[in-house]
């Protein structure tokens, strides 16, 4: 029981990395399929679809960053309240990361269709996909602020 705080903190780090990572894997996977389709027909569009492919991957990085910050704040025998606080801090990036990466993947994959038909529209496709990123960034910000409060 005395290490319950540590357990919750570790669980928080795992949540942040796991769920945001799952979201990114799904998002990047969908864009990857679309991008492969575009490149099969026109290999010269690789550069344009690559940026779209990268975008849903950022949530996984945010989750990794949050997990790293939480782990840095874990100390042996930390109180339960602190452990619970760190666990709660992981939730915004874990879930907002999961959902936003999946949806960003769909938007970016649709953007690949736009690039296929109108290569000059790749900037617009990137902007549309980047809009979804806003919510992952806000979630990361809250996660970082909460880690600061809980630590």
């Amino acid at each position, binding site marked *: 029981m005395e290490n319950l705080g540590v357990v919750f903190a570790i669980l928080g780090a795992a949540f942040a990395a796991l769920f945001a990572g799952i979201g990114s894997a799904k998002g990047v996977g969908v864009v990857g*399929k679309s991008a492969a*389709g*575009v490149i099969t027909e*026109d290999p010269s569009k690789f550069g344009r679809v690559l940026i779209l492919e990268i975008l849903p991957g950022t949530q996984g990085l945010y989750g990794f960053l949050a997990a790293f910050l939480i782990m840095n704040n874990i100390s042996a025998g930390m109180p339960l309240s602190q452990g619970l606080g760190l666990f709660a801090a992981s939730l915004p990036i874990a879930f907002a990361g999961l959902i936003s990466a999946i949806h960003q993947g769909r938007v970016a*994959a*649709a953007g690949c269709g736009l690039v*296929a*038909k109108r290569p000059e529209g790749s900037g617009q496709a990137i902007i549309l996909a980047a809009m979804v990123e806003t919510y992952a960034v806000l979630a990361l910000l809250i996660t970082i602020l909460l880690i600061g409060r809980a630590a």
Partner: protein
Amino acid sequence: MSLFNKKKDTDYAYAVARVRSNELSLLTEADTEQLIEAESYEAAMNKLADLGWGEVSKDTDYASYLEDYFAKHWAFLEEILDDIHELDLLLVQNDMQNLKAALKSLVLPTPVDGIYSQSTVYDTEALTEAVKTKEWNELPDFMQEPAMEAYEVLTTTANGHLADAIIDKATLERILYLGNATGSSVLANIAERKVATANIKNALRCAKTGKSKDFIERSLAECATLDKGNLVEAALSGQDAVLSYLEMTDYREGAEQFRESTSLFEKWCDDLLMECVSEARYTPFGVEPIVAYYVARDAEVKTARIILSAKKNNLSADMIRERVRTLYV
């Protein structure tokens, strides 16, 4: 179809991206206008060659040229789809045409070659062999009963029209079934419109040729947007009665077009299908953009055929414009 039902819309992401890239090569209205304005049949053929439809020579026959062009795109669809049965809805009529041909070959004194369509979902050779040996259970389930019934009609009454009507009705019922089985509102709508327009054409034909009530009932399929009973009664009374009935349905424009000319009516039928698939232009995933691509290629080939045939027969540009189909892009 089981695989089809389990797939998520994003499972089509690769195929849709390839379709989007290929949509760039679809005929545009500007291309069509240039073809119509071409000085001669040869000039129109050369224009198609310039657009990447394939090399042409002095001896190139436009029918086989267009067939080869469509076959190339059919091969593309086979390549991008894991399960070609997802296009059954659009192709099952080709299989049923082959079934008709195979049945007729059984009763005709001389075998008929080169009449089978190749854009099919079932193996044509296996289908013709099953019919030849009368192993009806070797046919796909939905073909068995109509094949037996049509064979019975052909051998007992030699009524080829009725045998055709039996197969046609089974085709329409299969199209409706496939459209509804997909769970896609776009595909269900395509199926409904295809069946409704086929029913209208059948009813008008039956009315013109004075077919019996039994024949008309065996020709028309039930569908949601037309009342079969009313259509049968109208067809018994004549073409005007069919058109009057249509004026009370969603298909009043079809009646107006038919009164103008049969070619305008045919164009309206094809355009109706294009209208159903046009929303797929903005659908990022799913089977709909692939179905729309097939319909778009089919429409462009029909358009090219109309223009080339008209050029060969020296029809005026205005007459050609009246007949060309609405394009996808």
